[in-house]
């Protein structure tokens, strides 16, 4: 599948700045002729429409019209302003869809400020607080969407999405709504936004990355952006996609990630991965906030002469196997990294699929650098996280030619890889080497 280059003229990656870089976004969205979205008869989500929008977007970008530097929550905020503005209420204006934004505390702007200014501008009937009940929020959203509206529901933290995950909502209702009715009904207008992932001090219940659960549910889409401009374009795509979408926002990047974001209405394609850094030795696949960690690992590895290709998956379900496959066929090695625990994580799915497709091309076992199989810890967060060091080390091992001589040594390496995380914590590189040597001898004897 194609590698999108539309954001080429944007910063490839969010700029990290630990000084409060909060730039209040200009909330008034100037659509500037980008009214490409409301006229579609298919909930605005068809591929041709994407293509059109992308083309226009590119033209706009090439003509030098760039947006202001804003952070990720402001980009989300812009997208929501545009979504509500481009899909007004049916009652007053004859349009196809009406967009609504609702959830806990969204009315005053939300705990992460993503919904700032929406209620004032669009009224409390279209932007409103809900009772504190996730299954109610999503259930309500399904009903609203089933009546032909665009229901944009916010779950305050992904850690609290589970009441909405169960039979009431996402798995048994939203995901099956179209299928079970034989396409007589659908709730494709539903988009569920939820901040996910580590934030440095979130502990068990403000740090989780539950994406893998949702990736096991045919009928929904799962999307995670990596940066402000990606967040805006992808969120608008999700809102207008004719399928229910779970959109996880990397909460660590809400204020931290700042980049130029086009002010106009634009959409980025779903189910298309993007190569955000080209390389020849190893492919790294990730999504969301983890990409910044991986980017840093790539830079480190480059110093040692290892050329890394970095891929942002963006849409986890249904995901773009072709882009990853093409990359792995080129590099022969694959490393996947996510914050969620390694066991049963989405990395396992990517690994299995790529081994199926690229088995003969692989020069090293697929590596997964992920969260540990523990609940997300508070004090131990720096140890739990799939950090730059872990990624870079495994990447290095993958490339190590000595370890690639025979299949037996492959096995040996694989074993080392598995133990690497704990070894690193013990600070035992020597220990690792000794252990590797031992295994190698045993394997060869």
């Amino acid at each position, binding site marked *: 599948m194609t590698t999108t280059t539309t954001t080429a003229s944007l910063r490839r990656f969010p700029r990290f700045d630990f000084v409060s870089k909060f730039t209040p976004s200009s909330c008034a969205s100037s659509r500037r002729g980008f009214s490409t979205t409301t006229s579609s008869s298919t909930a605005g989500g068809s591929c041709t429409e994407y293509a059109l929008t992308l083309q226009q977007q590119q033209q706009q970008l090439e003509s030098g019209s760039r947006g202001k530097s804003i952070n990720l929550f402001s980009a989300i905020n812009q997208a929501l302003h545009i979504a509500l503005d481009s899909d007004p209420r049916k009652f007053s204006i004859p349009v196809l869809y009406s967009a609504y934004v609702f959830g806990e505390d969204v009315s005053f702007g939300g705990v992460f400020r993503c919904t700032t200014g929406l209620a004032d501008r669009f009224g409390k009937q279209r932007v409103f607080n*809900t009772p504190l009940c996730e299954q109610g929020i999503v259930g309500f959203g399904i009903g609203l969407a089933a009546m032909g509206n665009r229901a944009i529901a916010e779950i305050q933290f992904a850690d609290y999405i589970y009441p909405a995950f169960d039979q009431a909502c996402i798995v048994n209702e939203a995901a099956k709504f179209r299928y079970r009715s034989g396409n*007589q009904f659908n709730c494709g207008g539903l988009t569920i936004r939820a901040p996910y992932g580590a934030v440095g001090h979130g502990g068990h219940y403000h740090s989780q990355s539950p994406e893998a659960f949702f990736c096991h549910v045919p009928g929904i889409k799962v999307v995670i952006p990596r940066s402000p401009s990606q967040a805006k374009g992808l969120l608008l795509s999700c809102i207008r996609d004719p399928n229910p979408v779970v959109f996880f926002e990397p909460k660590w990047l809400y204020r931290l990630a700042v980049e130029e974001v086009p002010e106009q209405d634009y959409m980025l394609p779903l189910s298309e991965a993007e190569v955000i850094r080209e390389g020849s030795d190893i492919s790294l696949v990730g999504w969301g906030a983890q990409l910044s960690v991986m980017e840093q690992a790539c830079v480190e590895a480059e110093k040692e002469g290892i050329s890394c290709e970095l891929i942002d998956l963006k849409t986890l379900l249904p995901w773009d196997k072709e882009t990853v496959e093409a990359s792995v066929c080129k590099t022969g090695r694959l490393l996947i990294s996510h914050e969620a625990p390694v066991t049963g994580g989405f990395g396992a799915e990517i690994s299995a699929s790529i081994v199926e497709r690229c088995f003969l091309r692989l020069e090293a076992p697929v590596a997964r650098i992920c969260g540990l199989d523990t609940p997300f810890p508070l004090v131990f967060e720096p140890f739990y996280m799939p950090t730059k060091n872990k990624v870079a080390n495994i990447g290095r091992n993958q490339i190590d030619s000595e370890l690639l001589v025979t299949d037996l040594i492959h096995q040996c390496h694989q074993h080392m890889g598995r133990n690497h995380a704990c070894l690193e914590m013990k600070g035992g590189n020597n220990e690792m080497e000794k252990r590797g040597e031992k295994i190698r001898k045993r394997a060869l004897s």
Partner: protein
Amino acid sequence: MAIWFRKSINVSANYLKAKTGLRGLLNQRHPSPCFHSKFSSPTSLNGKNYRNPPSFLGNSTTLFGSPRFESVKAGSQEELLYDNGGHQDQALDFPGGTVPFTPEMRFISENSKERIPCYRVLDDNGNLIMHSSFVQVNKEDALKMYGTMVTLQTMDTIFYEAQRQGRISFYVTSIGEEAINISSAAALTPEDVILAQETQYREPGVLLWRGFTLQEFSNQCLGNKSDYGKGRQMPIHYGSNKHNYFTVSSPIATQLPQAVGAAYSLKMDGKDACVVTYFGDGGSSEGDFHAALNFAAVMEAPVIFICRNNGWAISTPVSEQFRSDGIVVKGQAYGIRSIRVDGNDALAVYSATRAAREMAITEQRPVLIEALTYRVGHHSTSDDSTKYRPVDEIEHWKMSRNPIARFRRWVDGNGWWNDKDESELRGNLRKQLLHAIQVAEKVEKPPLSDLFTDVYENTPSNLIQQEELLRQTIERHPQDYPSDVPL
């Protein structure tokens, strides 16, 4: 969040006012020497047998002999319970409204003394009860209601038999609950074209009333090519776009919060319509029920919640389901207007639903109806209810409390119906139903491609690949796959 106390609190005046409701005491500010003694000694509580509710629960007579201190009852008396008589300085200015103070430590009782009565119009013999308030039903409507009830009953009988013969895989009857099905549907006016119906699986009568044909029912139960659901769901999971009837899903009560969202859409679009959603007594224990009622109240959504309290959730009786006085009392806790109705009284259900619809639309608010009925049939064809409930009980409801028989007596009493009409109707229905099943059986199954469509609006590449792989496997081993599914 600011919680603050208004100054000048006069405990006793407030107390007396609250107790007696005597206007004359309102402005008097004198200490009351008597009431403090009531719970002055903490030890007096310790020795009590808690099976007899302590007096602060309000069951004992109060100081002034006022019966007003009984626990909160659904109905009209609640306004007296905490009447502060405009003594605003005796109140807590709290977010969401002012709350009066009381010096009395009194827990609200877990139940009112008397159960909430059940609204009915027809007595067991089908006679109009004197002074009953109800919406008149004309001959044409009454006969259509009666005919549809009989149709539902006959359909249930024949489909049940068909399941027993192995012709369909599963079935759920509505026997004993025909009046709720048909009367509630009939109370919704024909103008309600966009009325969205969200249901559980024991309301096929609503669909029947709306014109879903016996052939369409049969197609769904047989899962053939003409089933709108493309053979993907078990029998009785009906759905019809043209009848504004959302496709049924099996999970209990999940339709309730969705109904609120759909109702909110109608509200925002200014439609002259409401959403009606059905659930059972068991469903009221699900979190979704509570989420839905709370959301509906807060969103002021025009939705009617109809609970078919039929006494049994598979084998679980209501006594093991909840300790409240049924479902109707739960409405008030959420700020929802509620009524309990005799679910086997077609006129009562009809009248209550008409009134509820009127309120829901004109006042833009939710309404809760608890219809008391009885599941005369087994839970489903996979169930034998005589294993957990007495046969006598079933027979009693089947014979003495039969909603169709009762409605027929009323229709008969009006001179609108006779035995000849009856046997003609039932005979025809039987023939039509058997024919419909036979026709449905001959229609081929949905094509294999329907397995992969509609997961998403457009089929993604992984599904396309999986379909290719499956077809290759079928080609190699055709004998291992159902021959009636077109490839």
